[in-house]
C-alpha cells in the first residue's frame, strides 16, 4: 500500500487556496493507486494553521501540521530537510506539491534529497501498471509530454488552476507535531508587498483587453471599470493597433508579435482577432470575446462570446462582476 503525501502551503498562519488543489490532485492519485491508499496532507508552520480543518472535505485522510518556531515563513533548507525526512520515514508512493513559486522551489530540493526525479508543473496524473503517469505542457504549451515514473515515490508538482477542488470528504483527522532543526542557511527575511501600481498584463490572472473597437482612448475607462470590478486580480491590456495609435502605454500591449500572456480569463473587447493577437493570448485558460461583428475571427477562438455593442455589454458585465464580489 502506497500512500500519497500532499504538501500544503501556508502564509501568515492560514492555508493557501492552492493547497485545496494539491489535496484534490493527491486524492485523485491515491484513488488511482488503489489498495486503500490514503492522502496525508502536510503543512510546515510556526504554530496551528487556520483552514487546515477544511482539507478533509477535498479528500485528505489526515492533516499533519509540523511546527518549528523558524518555519513561520518559508525556510528553503529547513523545509526541504523536514519534508524529505518525512517522506523517507513514511511509505509514500507519491509526493505532491503545488507548482507555485514556493512549490517549484522546494520540490526539486526534496526530490534531489530523496534521489528521485521530479515531474514539475503537471496538468494530469494517472496510474497504469502500478506506475504513476503524468502529463505536462512543454514548448510553451505547444505540446504535451507524457512520462512514466519508475520506482517510488513519484515526486510531482501540480500546475495551479488545473486540479479544480472537488468535494470528496474524508476523515481529515488533524495531527500536530513539533519538528527539530534549523531553518537553514537561506533565510527569508520578509515578504514585501508587490510593487504598487497596475498589475502587469503578463502576470495578471485576469486580463481585459481592448482594441480599435473602443473607438477613442477615453473609452478605455469602460474597461478600467470592468478590470477594477475584479478586485485587484485584473489588468487592462491593449491590442497593438491602439498602442501604436498612442491610446495606451506599450506596457499594456498584448499580442505583440512574440509576447504571450496566459491568464485564467481573457476578455477581448472590440478586438477582431488577428493571428498576431491570438498567438499572444491563445494559451489563456478561458477566452471571452465581445464584438459587434459576428464574423470577427476572435469568435473562432473564444470559449464564450457576446455579439453586441461593447458600450452596452461591458458596463452590464461590470455590474454583474461587482455583484459577485460585493
Amino acid at each position: 500500500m502506497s500512500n500519497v503525501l500532499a504538501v500544503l502551503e501556508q502564509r501568515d498562519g492560514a492555508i493557501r487556496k492552492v493547497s485545496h488543489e494539491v489535496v484534490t490532485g493527491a486524492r485523485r492519485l491515491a484513488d488511482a493507486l488503489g489498495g486503500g491508499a490514503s492522502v496525508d496532507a502536510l503543512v510546515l508552520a510556526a504554530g496551528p494553521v487556520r483552514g487546515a480543518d477544511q482539507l478533509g472535505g477535498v479528500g485528505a485522510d489526515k492533516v499533519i501540521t509540523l511546527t518549528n518556531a523558524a518555519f513561520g515563513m518559508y525556510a528553503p533548507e529547513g523545509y526541504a530537510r523536514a519534508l524529505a525526512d518525512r517522506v523517507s520515514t513514511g511509505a509514500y508512493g507519491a509526493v505532491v506539491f503545488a507548482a507555485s513559486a514556493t512549490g517549484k522551489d522546494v520540490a526539486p530540493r526534496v526530490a534531489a534529497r530523496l534521489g528521485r526525479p521530479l515531474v514539475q508543473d503537471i496538468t494530469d496524473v494517472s496510474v497504469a501498471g502500478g506506475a504513476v503517469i503524468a502529463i505536462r505542457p512543454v514548448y510553451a504549451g505547444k505540446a504535451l509530454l507524457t512520462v512514466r515514473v519508475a520506482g517510488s515515490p513519484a515526486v510531482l508538482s501540480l500546475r495551479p488552476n488545473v486540479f479544480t477542488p472537488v468535494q470528496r470528504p474524508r476523515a481529515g483527522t488533524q495531527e500536530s507535531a513539533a519538528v527539530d532543526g534549523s531553518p537553514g542557511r537561506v533565510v527569508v527575511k520578509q515578504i514585501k508587498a508587490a510593487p504598487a501600481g497596475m498589475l502587469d498584463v503578463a502576470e495578471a490572472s485576469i486580463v481585459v483587453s481592448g482594441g480599435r473597437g473602443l473607438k477613442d482612448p477615453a473609452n478605455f475607462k469602460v474597461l478600467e471599470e470592468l478590470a477594477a470590478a475584479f478586485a485587484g486580480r485584473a489588468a487592462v491590456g491593449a491590442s497593438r493597433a491602439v498602442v501604436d495609435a498612442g491610446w495606451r502605454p506599450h506596457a499594456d500591449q498584448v499580442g505583440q508579435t512574440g509576447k504571450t500572456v496566459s491568464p485564467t480569463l481573457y476578455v477581448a473587447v472590440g478586438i477582431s482577432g488577428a493571428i498576431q493577437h491570438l498567438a499572444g493570448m491563445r494559451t489563456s485558460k478561458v477566452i471571452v470575446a465581445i464584438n459587434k461583428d459576428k464574423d470577427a475571427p476572435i469568435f473562432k477562438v473564444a470559449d464564450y462570446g457576446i455579439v453586441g455593442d461593447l458600450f452596452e455589454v461591458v458596463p452590464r458585465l461590470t455590474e454583474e462582476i461587482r455583484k459577485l464580489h460585493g
Partner: protein
Amino acid sequence: MIPAAYQPPLPLDRLVLPVGAPGAGDRMDLDVLIVGAGPAGLACAIELAHLAQRERADLNIGVLEKAEALGEHSLSGAVVHPRAFRDLFPDLKDADFPFHAPVQKERVALLTSRWAFTLPTPPTMHNAGHYVASLCEIVRWLGERAAALGVNLFTGFPAASLLVEEGRVAGVRTAATGLDREGRSLANYMAPNDLIAGVTALAEGTRGSLSQAWLEWQGVTSENPQIFALGVKEIWETRRPLDTIVHTLGWPVPTDAFGGSFMYPLEPNLVALGLVVGLDYRDAALDVHALLQRMKRHPLFLQYLEGGAMVEWGAKTIPEGGYYAVPARRSGDGVVVLGDSAGFVDVPSLKGIHYAMQSGMFAARAIYAGLKEGDASAARLAEYDRLVNASFIMRDLYRTRNMRLAFKDGFYVGGLKAALMTLTGGRFPGGKIATESDATVARRITPGLRPGSVVTPDGRLTFSKVDAVFKSGNATRDTIPIHLVVGEDVPAEAAGFYARMCPAGVYEVAQGTLHVNAPNCVDCKATDVLGPRWTPREGGSGPKYKRM
C-alpha cells in the same frame, strides 16, 4: 498618380559617411568586408577563403548580415542551376549540395479565372538538370562551410552607411541597436561599429541601399534604369503530393501588368508557391498579396492546398531590368557590387542564385589578386567586371535582354515579341527597348475604391496581411525607430497606393492619412522602389524565414 512625385530621394547623407565621422563605438579592421550573407556574399567569402587556404595565406574576412541568423532574410522560388556550386566545390557531388529533388516534370500554363491551358514550355524556361531548393537552406549550408573555413560571420549587424575616403570605399558603419521610437537609448543600447577593410563587397541583394548609394555617389549609370517585380510567396504542407514544377501566366495578373506564378515541390507534400508581378503595374489598386490569395482558389492550386496548412509566408522584390539595367561598372576604388545588387537576374528563366554565386566567386578572384599586390583600386578590381562580362552571366543576360522589357506594352503584344525573340535567339526585335523606372510610371486611380482586402480572408486558405506577416516569423520589436523615410504631404491617393503595394501591411490609410506600421516590414524593398525609402534598421529585425 505618379509615385515618383511623393518619393523622397535616396538619403545619401545617411548612407555615405566620411571615414572618421563621429558616432561610432568600436572599430574593426579586416582585409575583406562583405555586406550581406546571401548566396553572392557567402560564395565570395568561401572562394576567398579557398584561395587563401591554397597559398597558406591568412586573410581576415568578415561578412555582415542584418538578419539575426543566416537565411532568415533569404527568399526565392527556387529552381537552381547547380553550376556555381560545382565550380565553388569541385570536390563535391550534386548529391552533397543543399538541394531537394532534381526537376523531373515541368509545366507552363495559361490561366483564366477557371481554367488552365498547358502551353509548350518556352526554351528559356526548361529546367532539366536543375534542382528545386530552398534559398534559406542554401544560405545556411554555405554559411556552415564559410564558418568552417574561418570566415567571420556577424549576424544581426546591418550595414547602415558606407565609409568613404575621397573617392574610395573604406568600409561600412553598422546600425545602432537598442534605440526607442524617439531615438533615445535603451538599457541594452549598442553604438554603431565601423568596419574598415581593404575591399568592401556589397552583396545586399535586391535594391541594396549601400549599392544604390555607391552608384549614385560615383555617378555610375546603366543604359536602362533598374526595374523590379514583387514576389509574394507561401510554403504549404499539402495532403496531395506535387511532382511537377509549375509556372503560370495570365490570370490573376491583369493584362496591363507583367507577372506570373510558380509552384514547386520542395518535398512531395511541401509546396512553395508564389505570385510575381512587375512593379510597373498600371492600376493603383493592384495588391500582389491579395492577388495571390485569390489565385489560390483556382482549381490548379486548390487541388493541392485544400486540407493543407500554410507554414510560411514572405515577400521580396526581384530586379528585372536584365542586361541593360546592369550598371556600366560594378567595381570601384575599394569596392565591388555582387549578385542581385548588380542586377544579375534572368527573368525569362527565373534564375539569379547561380549568377549571384558566380559573381561572388569572380569578385573573390579579383579581390584576392588585388590584395596580394596591395592594390584595391578601381583599375585593379575592374578585373571582376572583365570576368563577369566574359562569362555566361552576361552571355545569358544578353540573350534575353529585351524579353521582359517587351512586356512593357502589355501581355499580348509582349507575348508576341517574346515569342519572336525566343525563335530568333534574341536577334529580333533587336535594339534596346528603353524603359523608365517603376516610380515614374503613371498609375490609374479608380475613384471611390477604398484600400482593403480584395478577398475576405478565411484564415485557412486565404490570409490577411497581418496574419501573413505573423507567418513570416516577424517578431520585430514594436518600439523600434521607424526606418522608412516618408515623403512630405502624401495625399490620400498615394497612401492608398502604398497600402495596396506593401504586402506586409506596413501602410494603412486611416481617416485619409497615411499610417505607418514599420515593425511589420519584411524588407522586401517594394517600398524603396515605389514609395517611402527603406533604410537599414536594428539587427535582427524583420522576418525569420526558415525554408523560403
